[in-house]
């Protein structure tokens, strides 16, 4: 695999300045996505993963603001571009796939026109030419009868087809990086697998990098090359997917993996479902030191000190004192 970094995020911090105080939703994260590679950003709801992904395209809305960091992409720091320059990046160089294809598609526009939107914005294609391209894209993402389907409205399609429409729209301008925010969460399990393999095929064909945001470790195991685990706005563990699953170094990652129900052992159903005790701490009063220590089964005295991300093995690091001997 080529190791040419496509996207390098360094120290990205996005805070929300609310009436009740400052929410540090994303608090200094580093991410690297290489060409042709899928990086999974894994975390529970409230961990900051969606805000992080929106921050990359500078789509965070008030009262949220990106307060620090750099997003290096194709030689530029995206955080320093003008809004106009940023518009030229969105869709053309970096495209995004959203979680809920029902709400992410315009209910009053035909899906063909929505797929063509990026082409019309970036390449100035006329309506007719853009529609023809939309039909090609629909065929490419496996929508049967694309000529007729291009004239349909989103509500006339199934969830899986709508997600294919979203993917076609994201692919329309051949982006170098695709950010997929929980692309399969709203879909049936069988459809999930189809969409994931579609994404994987498309990535392979185009050589684009994929940043996959998910809470589902099953999805991660299936398609990711590398994994970054986010907790409380920080990356707590980072490494190649095999390392993460075989030798998870952070108790939070270990907990997440233990939580995945094992379908192959129905006899043992008597055994209680695993879960991580407690919930993500309110961003208004996170514990000082390690943010996971309240829920951590192995917490010890040193956890009141803020841990740092330390390398464990080649390309694998974790933010936990247990790994510092």
């Amino acid at each position: 695999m080529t190791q040419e970094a496509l996207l390098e995020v360094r120290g990205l911090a996005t805070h929300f300045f609310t009436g009740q105080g400052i929410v540090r939703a994303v608090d200094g994260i580093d991410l690297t996505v290489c060409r042709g590679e899928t990086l999974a950003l894994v975390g529970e709801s409230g961990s900051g993963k969606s805000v992080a992904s929106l921050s990359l395209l500078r789509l965070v809305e008030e009262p949220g603001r990106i307060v620090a960091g750099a997003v290096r992409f194709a030689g530029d720091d995206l955080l320093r571009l003008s809004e106009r320059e940023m518009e030229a990046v969105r869709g053309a160089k970096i495209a995004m796939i959203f979680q809920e294809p029902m709400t992410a598609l315009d209910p009053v526009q035909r899906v063909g026109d929505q797929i063509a939107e990026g082409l019309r914005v970036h390449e100035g294609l006329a309506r007719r030419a853009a529609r023809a391209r939309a039909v090609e894209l629909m065929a490419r993402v496996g929508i049967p009868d694309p000529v007729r389907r291009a004239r349909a409205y989103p509500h006339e399609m199934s969830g899986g087809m709508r997600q294919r429409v979203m993917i076609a729209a994201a692919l329309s301008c051949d982006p170098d990086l695709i950010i997929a925010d929980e692309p399969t969460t709203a879909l049936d399990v069988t459809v999930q697998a189809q969409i994931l393999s579609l994404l994987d095929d498309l990535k392979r064909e185009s050589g684009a990098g994929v940043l996959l945001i998910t809470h589902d470790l099953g999805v991660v195991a299936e398609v990711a090359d590398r994994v970054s685990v986010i907790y409380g706005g920080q990356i707590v563990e980072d490494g190649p997917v095999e390392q993460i699953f075989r030798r998870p170094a952070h108790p939070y990652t270990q907990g997440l993996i233990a939580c995945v129900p094992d379908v192959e052992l129905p006899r043992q159903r008597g055994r209680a479902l695993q879960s991580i005790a407690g919930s993500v701490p309110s961003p208004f009063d996170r514990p000082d030191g390690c943010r996971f220590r309240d829920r951590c089964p192995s917490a010890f005295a040193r956890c009141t000190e803020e841990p740092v991300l330390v390398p464990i093995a080649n390309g694998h690091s974790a933010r936990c004192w247990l790994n510092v001997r």
Partner: protein
Amino acid sequence: MRSMTAKLVRHAQGRNLALVVVSPYLALIAIMAVLPEAIAPYDPLAIDASNILAPPTSTHLLGTDEIGRDILSRIIYGARVSLGVALAAVAVACLLGVPLGVATSYLGGRLENAIMRAVDVFVSLPEIFVAIVVLAFLGGDLPTLVFTIGLLYFPQFAKVAHGMTASIRSREHVLAAVSLGAGPVWIIWREILPNMRSVIIVQASFTLSFAMLLEAGLSFLGLGVTPPQPSWGQMVGTLKDYLFTNPWPVVFPSLALFLTILAVNILGDWLQDRLNPELGG
């Protein structure tokens, strides 16, 4: 599931039934407004001195007014004023209100607040009194009438457009369009305006009936079109003096006004269902 589909189908037929009844009537009114000379039996200003305040007869189907003019012909010619003034006023209101509402939502901050509070003040003005004052100072020619009525109804459009813009902007499909590289102008044209279209059209249809009523009221009071040009409200205004000798001349223009407003409202309802692709299509 099946019975629900059947219900929906019946519902749709009921809706279209209303349209089937209403559209020939509105087409007739439109022809009256555009080509009155083609269907009116008499010149609306022609005086038949032998028939003054006549009840409906075979020569004057709807009777005559106080100086012997044919009521039917005057109603036909009056459609142009009643419908034309109202339509133009709604166009003025819509073209002022919608851009203001959308732009204000984009401005944000204090300016947004200031403008929308000013709009609220406009909404709370008693329209007929404001219209009387404006027309008294500026005189009652047609453009002034149109502009006055338009100005009185633009705040409703501004408020609706402002609220819709705020709600549509926060929807995920707008975020998705931004993530595809669309700028604000594109977003307004392709996402925000199409998504508020059905609401604005319904607003316009109701405003059209209000505007017709207001025009009729002002003409009734003698502030609308200048006689002898007929309008429905003005006819009622002049003929009300003879209500007790002969009620017919008042009844017919009132009926024309009533039926037209009813038809416009039914059309508005139908459009509302029809324009929402999730319901009709």
